[in-house]
């Protein structure tokens, strides 16, 4: 793969985009890119072509590693972009290399290029400006986090690490690189299997998984819908369960603890911009009457974390503030913006400092939400809705939690309101699937606060009132 990239005329620092389903070939592409000193840019395979183009343009990718069909869909209108196709060869009018051509390239393995502070990969996250934003991470950023966690877990060649997250999601950085570092085996769970609880459990058994890392929603899906709880606990070999990305309601943590008392349960915290910078380990029995979730915990990976008030003054135990992170795992910056390596990062997360010095997550100070573990800027969904000619204005709110988390759009229509399915179809051409709205309501005018901003609180209240009524109606029918 490194030879192929060099054969295409790419040089150290050129960006290599990856847009393909999970497979060992795409992992090889990552390794080849890093070997040749080129950062890679993973794009979720479900990303619609329009959005993929936007990302490719934004990071000025020199090559995209993909399938033949996607290469054709992207076409040639992206400047000097070359293609590496992982099955077959690119169409003859597209510049690039096919898998067979790649394998037949001869010559020595290229020497290792690149330095610790070079860009290693770019992860695109939802952006508050209405466009995806590329988070730039260096080799040093990733290694600081991966080394710390490989040591904390005592990862060894005997381990079999599950990779649940897509490669475009930072959880996969642990799966891949902690495994490589420790000589452990990393087992890729295909995207198509990850959404079916029965297939995930098959995978856990078949691969003898010892380490699992995912968003809590994925574990909840297993606990609630899969055959997981019906199996003898000893059938599973998992010795550590890591979860990150959203709050994991304590009752599920308790369920896991009771069923697998020897398995370590670790709540990891960290936005894409900082890798994992804090964690809390759930130890001992979790009392039946406990309702508060696990805290974010304390700093790890060599980082320092603290909370500050709105006026910038650090807060102490019992007080609330915004969480800041500083240290070796903090990103280089956003793609296309001036680098901020070494600078502290304000997470936008509001936390409480607990008496023991740990931090507890309280909420966000902006309109970023987590739905099923995915980070979503509501402004980006709204921007995509506004592209629709029949929509005058739109505001999106997140409702529900865990796997039942939903996005609801409140819309002012210019003309005949498009049906829900038409809105979904429209959004599917602009956004990844997890950002497509689940429901829509049309209003003559969006409610606004005194300052003229959309009143999201009011919208959430409208939604809850409507759904409370529905629930009551169902209960009434049932009791009759």
């Amino acid at each position: 793969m490194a030879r192929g990239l060099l054969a295409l005329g790419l040089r150290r620092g050129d960006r290599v985009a990856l847009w393909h389903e999970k497979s060992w070939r795409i992992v090889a592409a990552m390794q080849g890119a890093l070997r040749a000193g080129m950062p890679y840019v993973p794009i979720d395979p479900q990303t619609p072509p329009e959005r993929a183009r936007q990302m490719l343009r934004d990071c000025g990718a020199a090559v995209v590693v993909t399938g033949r069909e996607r290469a054709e869909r992207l076409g040639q209108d992206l400047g000097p972009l070359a293609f590496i196709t992982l099955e077959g060869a690119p169409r003859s009018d597209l510049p690039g290399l096919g898998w067979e051509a790649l394998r037949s390239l001869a010559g020595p393995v290229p020497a290792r290029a690149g330095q610790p502070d070079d860009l290693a990969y770019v992860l695109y996250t939802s952006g508050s400006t209405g466009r995806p934003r590329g988070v730039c991470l260096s080799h040093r950023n990733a290694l600081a986090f991966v080394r710390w966690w490989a040591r904390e877990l005592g990862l060894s060649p005997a381990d079999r690490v599950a990779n649940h997250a897509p490669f475009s999601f930072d959880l996969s950085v642990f799966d891949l690189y902690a495994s490589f570092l420790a000589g452990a085996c990393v087992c890729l769970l295909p995207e198509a299997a990850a959404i079916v609880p029965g297939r995930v459990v098959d995978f856990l058994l078949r691969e003898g998984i010892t380490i699992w890392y995912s968003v809590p929603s994925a574990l909840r899906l297993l606990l609630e819908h899969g055959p997981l709880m019906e199996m003898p606990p000893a059938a599973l070999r998992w010795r550590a369960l890591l979860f990150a990305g959203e709050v994991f309601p304590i009752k599920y943590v308790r369920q896991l603890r009771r069923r697998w008392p020897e398995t370590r349960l670790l709540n990891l915290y960290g936005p894409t911009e900082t890798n994992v910078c804090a964690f809390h380990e759930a130890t001992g029995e979790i009392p039946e009457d406990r309702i508060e979730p696990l805290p974010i915990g304390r700093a790890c990976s060599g980082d320092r974390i603290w909370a500050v008030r709105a006026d910038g003054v650090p807060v102490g135990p019992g007080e609330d503030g915004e969480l800041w992170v500083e240290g070796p795992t903090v990103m280089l910056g956003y793609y296309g913006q001036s680098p901020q390596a070494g600078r502290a990062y304000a997470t936008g997360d509001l936390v409480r400092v607990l008496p023991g010095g740990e931090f507890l997550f309280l909420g966000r100070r902006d309109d970023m939400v987590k739905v099923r573990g995915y980070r979503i800027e509501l402004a980006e969904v709204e921007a995509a809705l506004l592209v629709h000619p029949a929509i005058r204005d739109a505001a999106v709110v997140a409702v529900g939690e865990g796997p039942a988390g939903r996005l609801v759009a409140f819309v002012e229509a210019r003309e005949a309101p498009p049906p829900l399915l038409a809105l979904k179809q429209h959004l599917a051409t602009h956004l990844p699937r997890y950002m497509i709205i689940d429901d829509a309501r049309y209003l003559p005018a969006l409610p606004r606060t005194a300052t003229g901003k959309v009143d999201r609180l009011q919208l959430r209240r409208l939604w809850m009132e409507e759904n409370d009524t529905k629930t009551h109606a169902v209960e009434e029918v049932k009791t009759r």
Partner: protein
Amino acid sequence: MSQLRAEDIYPVLRDYVARELLHGEDAGLTADTPLLEWGVIDSLSLAELLAFIEQRFSIQMAEEEVTPEHFQTLGALSELLARLSRAHA
């Protein structure tokens, strides 16, 4: 169990998807609507849909049959269920 035909299964599935996943708004929902691509079905609703299929048609799908191709559209799913029902009958 009697054999089911795709044309009998489809309206039942369509009714379920319209009611449970589109909140009763069935405008534009056809046998060819791309359910996954347009975000009509996600991992949670897939689990619930499987439970519905099992209960309504007494068809238990093997894990390896639960693939994106089979759930891509209501048409594809109806065809698959009809095939499974013939095989089980």
